[in-house]
């Protein structure tokens, strides 16, 4: 008997008209605030990718003759600096647009690392329980006890700042939120009939975790990942602000703020605009994440 059970085709009238993703998108789109968040995030991502076409200026090209020009002033060739120039005569808009790249790159990469780590830890802790659960949760407590920024800058100070170091430090130390949410969900899934049925049929633990538990914890995980992305972007700019982020001449929002802080009493635009860029990006992600949570799982507390 090697026949494989095939699902009976549903009669036409019971078939869902569209996939569940379509339903989900419709529901998300009905919330105006989360749609707005999604649009903001999309605009930021597209501008970051197409930075070269967005602005005629080079973000690192200096023009000392044109330094500290207020927003709207023109340079010798007649190009307008819509947001002014900084203390080295570099176009602020160009630097903001290019500065989105390291922010988003660190955001995505760090969230991917911590998300995978946290997912693994949470699945194992919740599904197996017992000793391994105790150990992992104590590790989580230890991780949470550290003032995050301080630990991050201490480690980056020792290893030296680079894109890889920053991504790894943020990624490795942000797994706890994911682990806690996934663990909680796995803990209750373990008792559900379909998991016990799989166990009774002799499925191995690894298979049960991947095929039965993981798909059911994916939704809360996704919500946590989205909201965590906002946090990581703020941390990346905080590190660059302290001079421990991606190093110059690469433009970063935090680095621009640090430069602008020096000129705060004479040239307000230096510090104001990069901060607005962070605020808008983070706000967009937060709004989208809130909408995602309310649409997918309103009871989720994150």
């Amino acid at each position, binding site marked *: 008997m090697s026949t494989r059970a095939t699902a009976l085709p549903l009669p036409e009238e019971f078939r869902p008209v569209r996939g569940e993703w379509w339903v989900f998108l419709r529901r998300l789109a009905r919330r105006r605030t989360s749609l707005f968040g999604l649009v903001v995030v999309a605009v930021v991502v597209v501008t970051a990718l197409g930075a070269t076409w967005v602005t005629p200026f080079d973000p690192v090209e200096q023009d000392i003759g044109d330094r500290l020009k207020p927003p709207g002033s023109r340079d010798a060739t007649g190009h307008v600096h819509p947001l002014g120039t900084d203390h080295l005569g570099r176009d602020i808009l160009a630097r903001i647009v290019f500065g989105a790249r390291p922010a988003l790159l660190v955001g995505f990469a760090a969230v991917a690392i911590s998300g995978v780590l946290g997912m693994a830890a949470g699945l194992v802790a919740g599904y197996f329980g017992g000793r391994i659960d105790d150990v992992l949760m104590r590790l989580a407590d230890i991780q949470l*006890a*550290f003032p995050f920024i*301080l630990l991050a800058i201490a480690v980056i*100070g020792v290893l030296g700042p680079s894109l890889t170091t920053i991504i790894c430090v943020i990624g490795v130390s942000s797994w706890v939120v994911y682990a806690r949410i996934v663990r909680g969900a796995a803990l209750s899934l373990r008792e559900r009939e379909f998991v016990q049925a799989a166990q009774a049929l002799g499925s191995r633990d690894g298979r049960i975790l991947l095929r039965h538990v993981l798909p059911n914890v994916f939704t809360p995980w996704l919500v946590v990942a989205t909201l965590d992305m906002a946090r990581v972007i703020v941390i990346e700019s*905080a590190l660059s602000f*302290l*001079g421990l982020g991606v190093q110059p001449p690469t433009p970063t929002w935090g680095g621009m703020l640090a430069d602008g802080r020096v000129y*705060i009493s004479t040239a307000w635009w230096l510090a104001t605009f990069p901060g607005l860029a962070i605020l808008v990006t983070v706000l967009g992600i*937060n709004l989208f994440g809130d909408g995602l949570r309310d649409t997918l799982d309103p009871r989720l507390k994150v």
Partner: protein
Amino acid sequence: MRTFLTRRLLQSLVVLLGISFVVFFILHLTGDPASVLLPPEATAQDIREFRARMGFNDPFYVQYARFLRGALQGNFGDSIRHGEPAFGLVVERMPATFQLAGAALLLALCLAIPAGIVSAVRRNTLIDYVSTVVALLGQSMPTFWLGIMLILLFSVQLNLLPSSGRGEWRHLVLPAVTLGLFTTARITRLTRSGMLEVLSQDYIRTARAKGVSDPPVVWKHALKNAAIPIVTIVGIELGTLLGGSVITETIFAWPGVGRLSVQAIYNRDYPVVQAAVFLLASTFVLVNLVVDVLYTYLDPRIRLS
């Protein structure tokens, strides 16, 4: 109750031990603590002597045991820059950091709890929308930018408040607002959702049906139950505040542990960094222990289970 306390205490001890290991390990991240501590122009001879003097040639676990014994006695070695014991330098600056974090937390609680309650009770009114939008902005605003903007407005433009240093209360206003905004936003949202959940419970309807008027229902019946998650988050937020003080203190030149440690990192003064990270993390663990004990008072189900 006693078993709960013992278990919780033991857990805290394990966490403290873990913290001490991580703090010890920071220096060994590159594999060679001597190269981290010594300036790059040090000669091979210097490095050899330094290693022998600091005991870096001993086995790893011997070094950790020595570090742990020192840490328990408050001895993290001498600051490389100041030549004084690192522990003393950090402890000296603790009051400033506690003052700032305390002020920020107080501000957050005084603003957030009333705002959250009003938002929940007057749901979907103008006041609810305003407080929700403010909370959202507060959660999305990077601390360091907020600090700079406040300096621009209140110090540079209006010349009302000082932009740096510590002294009378006027010095505290801008740093406390800067540090406290994120926490305010979080507690506002949490209070609002907690109150909304509690207000729809059966016992609230019962109280209303019995004829209890609005204020006592909100303040006595609902708030006490909505307070449980708020108390937990206060413990966690304190960690955010202690960590956030690193940036806020740097912006406002506030003479606390955060600013000291950032300077120590720039100067490669790692004994000070280790002492600071260890003390701040231990404070966080202690506060959360207290919070958990308080929690059992608010929610006896935890103590009994």
